[in-house]
């Protein structure tokens, strides 16, 4: 009878806790023992006679900052009075969340703003806490077309220094012997300048945070020569650097402050090969592979973390065609390509065959792939 009365619609929705309180009150009133409760239910409720308080939940932060990218997860923690926290994202297209007890890990998916929601259910009551979630993304693009140029100032504040370092604002593979202004490389190198462009999303992130560029390099180059009899090809290691040595260079050539209003930042490189001192015979080759990692770091809550990264691979092949002493006329560029890709640091017989052609045997020296 009393259960029917208490749960009737006339009194509105009635929780389990309220029913238990009413039962206890009635038992005390008439001197009856309370009914046995199932163990699982009993654990959810305060002991009989204890003061009843609503569950509480607070989050470790009012705003979560996370970048799009697998290494940029963020964490949030809930402090609760009791019970189990259930985590969710208001707009699940922006981020994913995985909870483990009172802590959740958030992974950015798409830039923008949404909310992290923590829901606590205890003793039949449910409470919710939310935090703002800002998902940041720095889109990295490669500009390297043969008809493209360095982004001019004021959008790219380092354009003058970059043009001066190369002697040109052209991007992509340049004519043999051009592309470096620093001695002894000027007139003696084979260069292919590029511009890596980072665009910050959403707009709010471009003005709130500080960014930093970083470039890492892993490279190897080889000489591909004829043997003394002129019947075989011999491949030897020429030089190497890395793996993953810092190659960021002077800040005069990388601008990590997002432009206004475009929210873009720029990092320039005029990478290539110095052929001046090479003593190869006519018909022999230099082959060079460079694997660059371009990273954008962001300072979030006082800590630097990687926000975005790409690999840019450069492959250079040049053939000696004369011995006049002038690189521009002594060498022919076969390849000087750059692309968003990862290049491996090994040289193989098929790879060499693609360069030298013909059918003469190829000997790859034991130390060519250290």
């Amino acid at each position, binding site marked *: 009878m009393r259960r029917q009365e208490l749960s009737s619609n006339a009194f509105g929705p009635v929780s389990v806790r309220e029913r238990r309180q009413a039962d206890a009150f009635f038992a005390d009133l008439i001197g009856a023992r309370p009914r046995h409760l199932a163990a699982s239910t009993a654990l959810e409720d305060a002991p009989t006679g204890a003061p009843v308080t609503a569950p509480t939940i607070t989050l470790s932060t009012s705003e979560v900052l996370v970048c799009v990218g697998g290494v940029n997860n963020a964490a949030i923690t809930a402090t609760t009075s009791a019970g189990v926290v259930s985590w969710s994202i208001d707009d699940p297209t922006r981020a994913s969340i995985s909870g483990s007890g009172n802590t959740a890990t958030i992974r950015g998916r798409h830039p923008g703003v949404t909310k992290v929601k923590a829901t606590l259910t205890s003793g039949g009551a449910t409470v919710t806490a939310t935090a703002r979630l800002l998902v940041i993304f720095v889109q990295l693009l490669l500009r390297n077309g043969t008809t493209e140029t360095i982004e001019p100032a004021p959008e790219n504040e380092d354009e003058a220094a970059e043009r001066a370092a190369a002697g040109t604002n052209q991007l992509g593979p340049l004519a043999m012997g051009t592309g470096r202004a620093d001695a002894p490389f000027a007139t003696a190198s084979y260069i292919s300048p590029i511009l890596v462009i980072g665009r910050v999303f959403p707009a709010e992130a471009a003005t709130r945070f500080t960014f930093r560029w970083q470039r890492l390099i892993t490279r190897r180059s080889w000489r591909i020569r004829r043997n003394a009899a002129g019947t075989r090809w011999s491949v030897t290691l020429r030089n190497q650097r*890395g793996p993953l040595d*810092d*190659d*960021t*260079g*002077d800040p005069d050539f990388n601008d990590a402050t997002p432009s206004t209003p475009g929210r873009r930042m720029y990092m320039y490189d005029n990478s*290539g090969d*110095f052929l001046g001192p090479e003593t190869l015979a006519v018909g022999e080759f230099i082959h060079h592979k460079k694997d660059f990692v371009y990273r954008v770091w962001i300072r979030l809550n006082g800590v630097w973390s990687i926000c975005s990264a790409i690999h840019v691979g450069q492959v250079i092949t040049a053939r000696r065609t004369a011995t006049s002493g002038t690189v521009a006329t002594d060498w022919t560029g076969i390849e000087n390509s750059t692309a968003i890709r990862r290049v491996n640091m090994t040289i193989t017989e098929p790879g060499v065959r693609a360069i030298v052609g013909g059918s003469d045997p190829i000997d790859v020296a034991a130390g060519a792939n250290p």
Partner: protein
Amino acid sequence: MDDRQIRTRDAIERTTHVVVGRLIEPGTISPGPPGAHHIDEAKFRIEQTLTPRDMAAPISGTVALSYTRQVLPKAHADPELQRGGRYLLFATAKPGRRLHALKIVAHSEEAVRVVASAFAGGARHAAEGPHARLA
């Protein structure tokens, strides 16, 4: 090299060793980042390891060192290393008895004191990678 940018403590935290070395052979050059040279295979005779022994195994003998030297713009140019000169090398060990230096400063008692002070103040090298043990 870029030691204008990198403070001593940061250089320690981004490398595996600080050593004192004497330049024997200047190495080969190739195009580095804009306005900079890659110097490879510079031969250094290591005279002293400043990194505390409990942090990394000491380095001895002759090693091949790579580093980057900024030459343009001239206002930011790094000085050329002198054959026979003694230098403090903030470097990371690489396979094959090679080091890559992030920061190089001319040797002086004052420079050695600054490094010792940084270690005493809690500076620590990056976690040792698979190639960190060079000696």
